[in-house]
C-alpha cells in the first residue's frame, strides 16, 4: 500500500513536529514525581556505581540516526523505544523511578556514533542505552560500552558472531532467522537455491550459514548461485538473467536498503512475480524485507513473495493488537511496524524486568541477572533472554500482500535457541 505523497507531506511535517515536541516533553514527563517505593528501594542499595539514578528518576540514553541515510530505517526504532518508555513511566517507572531520556543523533556516521556513545556513558552517566541499527554502528560503539561499562539494547536482526556482556541483542542473530526458514522452504519442495545479497557482513555471513545448512543438512538440496551487489545498486537485469538461467526453486534474497525497490521492480518487469513463481511451485524467500521496506517498494511489486521474521504487524494475538494500536495512537494512523521496530520495543521492557528482578541498576548486576528474563506479553509472543544475551524467540513465515502487510502462514513450533557462534556452521 503506497500512501499518497501529499498525505505523507503533511504527515511527515506533523510527525516531525510531534517528534520534536515529544523530545521536549518526555524529558520533563513529571518533574514533581515522588518515588512511592523509595523505602523499599533506597538509592544507596539500587545503585553502587556512578550511573545517574536519583531517588525519583533514572536517566537512559537513546542513540539512533535521526539524520542522514539511515534515518529512514532507524525512525521506527526511536518511536518504539519511546512508546515503551512512556508506557513504563505511566505504570510508575522502574523501582519507583521514572525514566528520563537523553537523545543523541548518530547522524548515520559511525565515528559520530562512537563519540555520542562515549558522551552518553561518560558525561550523562546513563543507566542504559537503547540504540544502534547497523552492524557497523554497533561495532563502532562496542569497545566503548565494554570499556566504560555501559549497557546497550540493540534491536536489529544481525549476523551474530558476537556476544558481549554489555549488549542485549533483542533482534535475531543469523541462525534464528535462516535455518528454520530454509527448512520451511525445503518442506515446500524447494531443492535448488539461489542466494542473493547486498555486499556487506550481514548478508555474507547469513548466506554462508544458509549455504552450509542447505548443503549439509537438507538432503538433495543444493545452491545453484550466490551473488552480491554493492549497497545502493540499482540495476539487477544481469542478475535476473542469471536467475532465469539457473531456474532455482527458491530465490533467497538478502538485498537491503534502497536497492530493494529496484530489485523487486525489475523482477516484476522480468515476469518473476509471486504468482508466476507459485504456478511453477517455486518461491522467493527474503530475510531483509519488512513492512517498512514494502512501504517504499509498493505492495503490488512484492505480492506473493515470502519473508522469514519473528514479528509481523498482522500477528493476531491480543498483545500485538494492543501494541499496534498504542503505536498508531502515539505516532499516527499511517505508521507501519516492522520486525526491528518491535524488537526495539522489547528493549526498555526487558531492561525494566531485569532491574526489578535484580533490585539494582548496576551494569554488572544486570549483565548476570539478564539470563532467564521473560517477557510473556511481548507483541511477537513469549521471549526469554539467553545466557549469551540474545533472545529465545519463534520464527514466522509471512506472505506479502498487495496492501503492504503480511499474511502469517507458518510459525516455528518451539522457541529457537540463539546461537551467535554456530558450531556446525563454520
Amino acid at each position, binding site marked *: 500500500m503506497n500512501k499518497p505523497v501529499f498525505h505523507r507531506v503533511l504527515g511527515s511535517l506533523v510527525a*516531525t513536529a510531534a517528534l*520534536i515536541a515529544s523530545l521536549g516533553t518526555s524529558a520533563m514527563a513529571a518533574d514533581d514525581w515522588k518515588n512511592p517505593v523509595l523505602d523499599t528501594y533506597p538509592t544507596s542499595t539500587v545503585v553502587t556505581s556512578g550511573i545517574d539514578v536519583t531517588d525519583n528518576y533514572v536517566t537512559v540514553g537513546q542513540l539512533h540516526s*535521526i*539524520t542522514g541515510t539511515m534515518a529512514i530505517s532507524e525512525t521506527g526504532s526511536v518511536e518504539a523505544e519511546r512508546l515503551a518508555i512512556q508506557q513504563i513511566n505511566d505504570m510508575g517507572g522502574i523501582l519507583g523511578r521514572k525514566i528520563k531520556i537523553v537523545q*543523541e*543523533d548518530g*547522524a548515520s*556516521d*559511525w*565515528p559520530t556514533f*562512537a*563519540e555520542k556513545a*562515549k*558522551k552518553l556513558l*561518560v*558525561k550523562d552517566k546513563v543507566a542504559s542505552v537503547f540504540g544502534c541499527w547497523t*552492524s*557497523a554502528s554497533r*561495532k*563502532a560503539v*562496542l*569497545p566503548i560500552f565494554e*570499556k566504560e561499562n555501559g549497557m546497550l539494547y540493540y534491536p536489529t536482526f544481525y*549476523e551474530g*558472531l*558476537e*556476544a*558481549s*556482556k554489555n549488549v542485549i541483542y533483542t533482534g535475531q542473530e543469523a541462525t534464528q532467522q535462516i535455518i528454520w526458514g530454509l527448512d520451511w522452504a525445503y518442506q515446500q519442495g524447494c531443492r535448488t537455491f539461489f542466494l542473493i545479497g547486498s*555486499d*556487506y*557482513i550481514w548478508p*555474507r*555471513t547469513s548466506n*554462508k550459514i544458509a549455504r552450509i545448512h542447505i548443503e549439509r543438512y537438507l538432503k538433495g538440496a543444493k545452491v545453484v548461485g550466490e551473488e*552480491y551487489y*554493492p*549497497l545502493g545498486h540499482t540495476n539487477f537485469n544481469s542478475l535476473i538473467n542469471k536467475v532465469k538461467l539457473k531456474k532455482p526453486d527458491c530465490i533467497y534474497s538478502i538485498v537491503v536498503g534502497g536497492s530493494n525497490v529496484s530489485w523487486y521492480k525489475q523482477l516484476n518487469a522480468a515476469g518473476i512475480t509471486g504468482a508466476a513463481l507459485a504456478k511453477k511451485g517455486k518461491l522467493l524467500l527474503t530475510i531483509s524485507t519488512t513492512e517498512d521496506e514494502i512501504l517504499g517498494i509498493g505492495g503490488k511489486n512484492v505480492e506473493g513473495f515470502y519473508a522469514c521474521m519473528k514479528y509481523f504487524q498482522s500477528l493476531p494475538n491480543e498483545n500485538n493488537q494492543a501494541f499496534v494500536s498504542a503505536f498508531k495512537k502515539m505516532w499516527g494512523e499511517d505508521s507501519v511496524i516492522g520486525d526491528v521496530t518491535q524488537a526495539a520495543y522489547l528493549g526498555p521492557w526487558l531492561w525494566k524486568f531485569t532491574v526489578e528482578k535484580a533490585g539494582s541498576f548496576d551494569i554488572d548486576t544486570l549483565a548476570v541477572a539478564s539470563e532467564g528474563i521473560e517477557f510473556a506479553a511481548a507483541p511477537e509472543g513469549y521471549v526469554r533472554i539467553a545466557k*549469551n544475551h540474545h533472545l529465545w524467540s519463534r520464527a514466522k513465515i509471512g506472505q506479502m500482500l498487495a496492501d503492504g502487510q503480511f499474511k502469517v502462514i507458518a510459525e516455528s513450533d518451539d522457541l529457537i535457541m540463539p546461537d*551467535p*557462534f554456530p558450531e556446525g556452521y*563454520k
Partner: protein
Amino acid sequence: MNTLLNNKLTGNKDQTVSFLILAAVLFVFFPLIFDIFRLNMVAKYLSLSFAAVGLVLCWGYGGILSLGQGVFWGLGGYAMAAFLKLEAAANIAKEAGSDQIKALSTIGLPDFMDWNQITELPYIWYPFKSFPITMVMILVLPGIVAYIIGVAMFKRRVSGVYFAIITQALCWIMEILFVTRQGWTGGINGITDLRTCLGWDIRTDSAQYILYFLTVALVLGMIIVGKLILQSKLGRLLVATRDMENRVRFSGYDAADFKIFIFCLSGVISSIGGAMFALNVGFMSPKLVTIEPSIYMVIFCAFGGRLSLVGAVYGTLIVCFGRTFFSELFPESWMFLMGTTFVLITMVFPRGVAGIVEDYGPRLLALFRKRSAGAEDLRIVKQAGVS
C-alpha cells in the same frame, strides 16, 4: 591581491602572530577549558585538518583541486589501523570474553578476517606487523599513489575540473574496494576495536591527553613545513605555475614536476592525519575515505581560507564543531544552514575566514584602539570603514 600574496610568501609578521595564536589556542587554551572527552573530539577534528592543510598547499597555492584527499587520508588511517589491529588480535586472548575467543578459529588473526573465512594473514598485511615499517608505509603509500596519479595527469597537462573529477572517481574506487574486500579491510564495518599501540593502552585518559598534544604538535609541524616550502623558490614557482603555467614552461621549467611534488606532499600530510585519527578514535571506517568526506575536506580548506595554512585548521574546527552543535540543536534544519554557508563562503568570501580576518581585522583593531581615544574619532573611523 598581489601584495597580499607577496606578504604571504615572504612570511610577514602577521603570519607569525597568527601561527603563534593558533599554537597557544591548541596547546594552552583548549586543554584548559575542555575536559578529556571534548579534547579527544578536538583531536579527532584536528586529524581531519591535516587534509585541509594539504589542500591549502595543492589547491590554494598549486591550483590543483583534489577531490580525492580522502584516499590519502584513508591510506594513512588504514595503515595505522592495520598495525593496531594486528597488535590487538595478538593480545585478544588476554582481553576479550571467552565466548568471542571460542568463536575464532584462528587465534591471532584479526576478528573480521575470521568472520570472512580467512585463515591466514593476507600478504598485504605483512608489512603492518612491524611498527617502523608501518610508519614508513604511512608516509610512502600515499606518496606512491599520488606520484602515479600526478605523473599520469600532470605530464599530460590535465588539470582543473577534469583532474577534480578523476580524483573523485578514485575515491569511489577506493570505497568500493575497501567495502567489498571485506576479508582484508573489515568491509563496511571498518577496522574496529583498536586497543593498544606497542603495549600502550590508547583508550585511557592519560593516553588521550598525550595523543592530543602529539596531534597538535604534528599539525603545527605540517604548517611549518608548508610555510618553508611556500617561502622557498619552489613555492614561488608553484604560485607562478598556478597563475601562468605557460610562462613557467617557457622559462625552461617543467611545470608538471612542481605540481607532482606538491600533490604528493599534500597526500603525505593527509595520510599522517589519517594515522592520527586511527590512534585518537580507535577505529577506521570506509565511511571516512569516501566522496563525501573528501568534499568536506575541501570545504574545511575553503572555509578557513584556501591561501592560509593556519586558516585550514580553524576552518576544520569551526565546521566540525558547527556540524556537531547544529545537528544537536536543530537536527532538521542544520543541513540548510551548512548548505547555505558553503554557498555564501564561495560566493562572498572566497578567501574564507582568513580572508575575513585579513580584510576586517585591521579595521576592527583600529576601531578598538580608537575607542579609547574618544567617541568623536570612532565616528570618523566608522565612516571610513563604510566607504
